[in-house]
């Protein structure tokens, strides 16, 4: 017993002060991409050609980057001859509408708004989620799991991942939704009582990600269910997921 107390003392207090303070991220972290379309030569398609998932499109002289398909591999930025495209260290990228993820280089980023006031009253100060991995590679899963460790301590915000869908207010889905998980995902969804909030975490869950076009998968959960929150990334950083959840419950605006 004394050993456990001493160990606790030496490990120290480790819970991050997020959202008040953001811990330093790696200098090489690739967050929200930024681009200056005015620097793009009219017929240049280098970035879209470098993208492995077709997240970048160029039409009528305009560049569009879909964060919902982006793997954040940075190959576009490395290839761009004009240095028009860079990855910032902004980790806050969750949105409420799918088209909010399509960047065109103009206007502010549409950060996720809170759930409707009626819904928030119903949920009170708690949000219980059932997670379903539907073809996820265990990276999104791991970085969702980590939110329950002492570093992030998700429960202090009233958010908790629960075992039974009957105890849940909503669903957090990872993975492109494989055909072989379609039935299990839908049954889990149906077992969750209303309001049944749906969150798509990671490029796969949003659009199929790198597996889009495979006949073994559906192109993300949006093909089957209405989605309330989109968290981009491959996988999203735990802070990106946490920021999204906190915005959804109105804890961060």
């Amino acid at each position, binding site marked *: 017993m004394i*050993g*456990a107390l001493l*160990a*606790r003392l*030496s*490990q120290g207090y*480790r819970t991050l002060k997020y959202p008040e303070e953001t811990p330093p*991220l*790696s*200098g*090489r*972290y*690739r967050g929200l991409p930024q681009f200056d379309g005015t620097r793009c030569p009219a017929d240049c398609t280098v970035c879209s050609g470098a*993208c*492995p998932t077709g997240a970048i499109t160029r039409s009528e002289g305009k560049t569009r980057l879909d964060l919902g398909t982006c*793997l*954040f*591999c*940075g190959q576009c930025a490395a290839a761009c001859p004009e240095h028009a495209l860079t990855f910032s260290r902004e980790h806050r990228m969750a949105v409420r509408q799918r088209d909010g993820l399509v960047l065109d280089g103009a206007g502010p980023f549409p950060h996720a708004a809170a759930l409707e006031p009626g819904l928030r009253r119903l949920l009170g100060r708690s949000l219980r989620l059932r*997670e*379903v*991995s*539907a*073809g*996820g*590679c*265990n*990276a*999104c*899963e*791991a*970085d*969702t*799991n*980590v939110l*329950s*460790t*002492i*570093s992030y301590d998700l429960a202090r915000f009233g958010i908790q*991942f629960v*075992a039974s869908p009957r105890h849940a207010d909503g669903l957090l889905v990872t*993975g*492109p939704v*494989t*055909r*072989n*998980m379609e*039935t*299990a995902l839908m049954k*889990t969804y149906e077992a969750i009582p209303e309001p049944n909030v749906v969150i798509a975490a990671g490029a796969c869950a949003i659009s199929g990600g*790198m*597996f889009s076009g*495979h*006949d*073994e*998968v559906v192109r993300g959960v949006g093909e089957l269910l209405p989605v309330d929150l989109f968290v981009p990334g*491959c*996988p999203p*950083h*735990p802070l990106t997921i946490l920021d999204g959840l906190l915005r959804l419950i109105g804890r961060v605006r």
Partner: protein
Amino acid sequence: MNTACGAQAFNCIPVHLSEIPVLSLALFREHVVRRVAENGRLVSLFGSPCGSGVRLYAVLGTADSGGFTVLAADPGDRYPALTPDCAQASWFEREIAEQWGIRPDGHPWLKPLRFHRSWRAGHDAWGRGPGEPIEPSVTEFYRVEGEEVHEVAVGPVHAGIIEPGHFRFQCHGENVMHLEISLGYQHRGIERRLTGEPSPRIMHYLEALAGDTSIGHGLAYCQGMEALTRTPVSFRAEEIRGIALELERLANHAGDLGALSGDVGYLPTASFCGRLRGDLLNITALACGNRFGRGWLRPGGVAWDLTPDLLGQMLDRLDRTSRDLNGALELLFNSPSVMARFEETGALTPALCQELGLVGVAARACNVGRDVRFERPAGIYRFVSIPLTTWPTGDVFARAQVRRGEIRQSTHFIRQRLEELSEGSACTAPARRPVADSLVISLVEGWRGEICHAIITGADGRIARYKVVDPSFHNWMGLALALRGQQISDFPLCNKSFNLSYCGFDL
């Protein structure tokens, strides 16, 4: 070298296909069965398109040579199954049946593995029509009959945030008589998209094949392609890859020991390790920007070199994290109540380990010295060896103990590399096309165990067949057998002590 009974091959050294003898089915079967029985192991067994049919390749690992023996045979649409005389072939043969529609006659339990359609239209091992639906786990299960026997079905959706799989227990009271594991829910169709015209997504597929083993599978791909394109890799790049691979092992072993602690209700180490695992992933992020090492490796070397400043930061973080990790593990291993739950739970014998061909932590916990870094080294491990960690008892305790030992060894290895990193370039771009009509076996000791990528090129140098064997493929059966005679309530603990990959298996 071509002998009458097989071609000799080594890790990451290509073999021309003409050197691999195509044996008669009877001879092929005889050789595989005999060599596996003589303390050998089936590293891989797979079909590859050949003319209008499919050719079978068997990669046999022999304990003494440090290499492999590769054999081939043409089975037609059916052939006499190896499984009745070679248990290790069981899931390989089910896979061959499912992928190519070739029937291994006499296979004692011929069921689909991943529940997808055959890759050869018109060839289905179960005679299913093209319109017939294929539903996961909708199949026969092994059943024990009796008045007091009951069946427990778990999954695909489990209680925690974990990947999906289905477990079917045959129980008598609390005791498990048999466990059957049915997977395939995570099947994304990666393997067949690694062939033909090189996809711009190929490195991403490999890194997401099992997303917790991005470095392991990524490295197996890089090594294989470098061997086929004869691309030299600098010593510095090899060292950085070694750092990446061992960091991946550290993070996962730390996470696993924390989870084992949580599964027996010992919360201090469970909470400490949850944080420490994240800190280890963050060291990888420091180097390449991604916590799982995505984008760090590329054929020819590494995409992210380490600056002197980064080396210092990584070293500092490693020192601090390993100090805390040692403290957390000390506490765990000094708690008699924890040890009482770990010891003699889910034990496997060395004989069973040998028969099933287990790999990685699970094998080393059965006193079997099986480790690619040691037996068949490639890359940095050819020059710097990591001592082998084994434990003789085969139980949950042994699997925990092996992880603890490996944490110590990997930390030491990383520290040395960070302190003495060689000068040189970080990446050489592969200039040549892959050699034509060749086979290369690329092996990496991932944190779970042996990762095997077998790559076959066609006459045009393009990849004609890419066969992935994740360590989980060998080890799921080990978990099933470890449960026999155990209490069903010990399943989470046993399962965590193996911690196998679902998507790495499902591909």
